[in-house]
């Protein structure tokens, strides 16, 4: 009996294709002598599919065609039902309903609907062991505003920021602009709060540009954050593996960029081998930094991971202000591209070993949760107490 890992990828996000690549890398790395793998691809329309055709990257050139090569599947959001069901039962007389029984799930989504806790919520409702951040930490990690609020509350350095909603901006623009100019000062970066991979992000060096960039960001999201922009900027990334009780940091990487900030094209289309994605963009591993700075960044990354209650493998991106030497935590990716395997290989953990760890972490979390009391058999409708006629409301009834 081998553990069957369900690897879910794709999804309704702007990073759909990247997720396909990350997932295929992960699936190839899983040790098939120890585990079975069931790939589940979520199309851009949100339908789920499984089948061997999903493992050939060429098949994704035509998104419609791949749906015909695979079988549509679904899971029931029923507690304890870990089966993957065929949408159309196969076999004679339609007897084969179950495509696979999943033991552990590893979500490899990037961006909205997969990395922000929505998918994790389904897994928690089913109560199937899974690797990676749960609903709470996924949501907090994805939203740049809540993330900064939590880190600031825990004395982890973040740049100054102001946040608001698109409608607030419309109603109260002058106030917000004053606040931005007083509290932060130009230049600033404007970002939608919860999208990934640099969509809707722009820099503003003056008021005109600020208006322009906020309007642009508002096309993509309702929550917007305006941050102090560090001009002489060095970006350093650090991956963390584990759970909030027991985690370790990887070696650091410095992504090399072409413009002011890494753009979508930089991140994903770098190099001549277009479809190879992440591996083509250039990185310096390990980053060339003094020892004490490396340690401090690893410490801050670990703290970020712990304070957000993360799980599995995440990547924390920090910014060094070259002018002052100060380090700020910029953001966390709770499901990093390629699961940061290249950082872990450089740290001494092979990709297959990384996948082993994720499975073990998933099982450990499920065991821990099982040790807490969660059922309280108290049917308030069956209690005898209360005055004549009617239930006063839960607080009024004595046991």
């Amino acid at each position, binding site marked *: *009996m081998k553990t069957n890992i369900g690897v879910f990828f794709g999804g309704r996000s702007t990073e759909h294709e990247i997720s396909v690549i990350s997932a295929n890398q992960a699936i190839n790395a899983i040790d098939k002598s120890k585990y079975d793998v069931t790939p589940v691809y979520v199309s851009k329309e949100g339908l789920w599919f499984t089948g061997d055709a999903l493992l050939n990257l060429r098949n994704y050139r035509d998104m419609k065609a791949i749906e015909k090569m695979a079988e549509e599947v679904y899971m029931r959001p029923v507690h304890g039902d870990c089966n993957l069901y065929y949408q159309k039962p196969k076999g004679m007389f339609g007897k084969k309903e179950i495509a696979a029984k999943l*033991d552990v799930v590893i979500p490899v989504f990037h961006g909205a609907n997969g990395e922000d806790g929505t998918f994790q919520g389904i897994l928690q409702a089913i109560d199937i062991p899974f690797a990676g951040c749960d609903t709470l930490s996924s949501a907090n990690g994805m939203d740049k505003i809540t993330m900064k609020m939590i880190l600031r509350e825990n004395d982890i350095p973040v740049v100054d920021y102001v946040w608001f909603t698109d409608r607030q901006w419309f109603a109260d623009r002058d106030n917000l602009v004053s606040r931005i100019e007083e509290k932060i000062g130009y230049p600033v970066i404007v970002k939608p709060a919860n999208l990934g991979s640099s969509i809707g992000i722009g820099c503003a060096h003056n008021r005109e540009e600020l208006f322009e960039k906020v309007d642009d960001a508002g096309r993509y999201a309702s929550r917007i954050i305006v941050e102090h922009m560090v001009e002489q900027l060095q970006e350093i990334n650090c991956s963390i593996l584990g759970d909030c009780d027991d985690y370790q940091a990887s070696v650091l990487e410095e992504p090399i960029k072409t413009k002011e900030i890494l753009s979508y094209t930089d991140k994903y289309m770098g190099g001549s081998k277009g479809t190879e994605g992440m591996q083509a963009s250039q990185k310096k591993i390990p980053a060339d930094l003094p020892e004490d700075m490396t340690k401090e960044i690893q410490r801050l990354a670990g703290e970020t991971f712990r304070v957000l209650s993360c799980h599995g493998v995440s990547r924390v991106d920090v910014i060094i202000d070259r002018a002052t030497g100060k380090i700020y935590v910029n953001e966390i990716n709770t499901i990093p591209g390629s699961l940061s395997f290249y950082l872990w290989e450089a740290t001494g953990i092979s990709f297959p070993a990384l996948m082993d760890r994720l499975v073990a972490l998933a099982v450990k979390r499920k*065991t821990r949760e099982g*040790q807490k009391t969660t059922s309280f058999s108290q049917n308030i409708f069956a209690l005898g107490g209360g005055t004549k006629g009617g239930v006063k409301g839960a607080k009024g009834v004595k046991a």
Partner: protein
Amino acid sequence: MSTVTLILLIVILVAAAADMFFVYSRDLMMLQQNSYRNERYLRWFNQSKESTSMVRLFCMVAFFVMALGRVPAILTYPVVLLILVWQAVSLATRKYKKPLVRTPRVNRIFVVMTLISAVVVLFMWLFAGMRGAAAIMIALLWISPLVLLGANILLRPVEKNINRKYYDDAASILASMPQLKVIGITGSYGKTSTKHYLHRILSEHFSTTMTPGSFNTTLGVVRTVREHLKPYDEVFIVEMGAKQPGDIKEIADLVHPRAAIITAVGEQHLETFKTVENVQKTKFELVDALPADGFAVLNNDFPYVASRKVGNVEAVRYAVSNPEGADYRAEEIRYTSRGTTFKITGGDLAAPLELHTALVGECNVSNLLGAVIVALRLGVPADKIRYAVSQIEQVEHRLSVKRVPGGLTIIDDAFNSNPSGSKMAVEVLGMMKDEGKRIVITPGMIELGDRQVEANREFGRHIAANADVAIIVGHYNRDAILGGIADGGMASENVIAVDSFAQAQQELHKIARAGDIVLYENDLPDTFK
């Protein structure tokens, strides 16, 4: 036959069929509670009120009357009809403490019982008409246990075949997981508690599955392997129960344990084992099944464990009350209102291992000791053991203490009791004399063979020494316990004898006040009244 009698006869046929449904279901329920074993069922039947029940007697008489046809039908039929309807209604509305669970097996037996009945009735109809058919239906109600046991026997090959398939499936699942560490636990008492404690401690360090609830038979283990064991599990804890010699060997041959815990060898199920020596031999079937590189953890507090030599595998002995000859001991045991603290010494321990737990009672210290030894041997770090032990929740119905709204403290020891366990429970009650009235509610202990009367009498004496009020449930042990209570000098106005558990609850509500402590000792299902 006149129209009236004809109509009555037809209605009788219908009523008898309905009554059969309820009677067969009731009989099936008792068979289920006797583990589908005919001998056990018969033993229960002979001892219960069933064999001499008025309704059965009536059915017998009615059958002969109807068969012989001497008494005019117009007189007998209404009476018969009345009784049939009365029985059907009373069975349909009765609330059983442990009702019939309609498993596929139960349904199979029911179908065969129905088929047997249908064949017999049809046969009689052909030979003796409607009157004969009605008479034979009433006869079947009279001898329903025969139909039940007959169906059970007929189905034996079917059940064996079904079980064989499941067994082989479980065996192949286990064979595909050679890294799985299997730990067997058995003993006359304490095995379920020890299993829970071991599971909680090992879960701190390994992915662990245990046989749930009371799945301690071969079929229960087969079901656990097929339905609960996970492919990523590292440890499998198997509780092994025995109702007769050979039971434990059967389970051990399936799961191939690497380590074992024997928690006790004492006087339980003596009506099948007959002697304590047989109990000892059966429990040690688990140790005999261990491989040479395994180990056995044995509770030396029981003379029949301490005296049993073990040659095939390493024996690690532990004790709480008789530390002589034991490798590990529990010392400095202190009970407080928050639970128990104690230290484990001996074995490979460089320093005493200090533990704190919410559990009470010396038996729980002993159970924890056995579990901790296994955890140490499997490499669980000491701080994880300490943490896990501090988190262990009391097991419901096994000497668990809780405060309920209304100010009562309940000591719940409702599960299958034994002489030493019930003595300890009563002593825990005894220690709480400064808080309020100490009340015991108990039907006494069962399955003690020819020690039944003496053990319950002794129990009565312990009650007198440790409680202020005693409520004795049922008739099974009433005389013995009341005798012991009188021996112990408890005033008779503090002793209440009731027929049922529901009545005991009513009496309790009359006398209980905030601050009182109530001990529920050994609560029995409906098989025993």
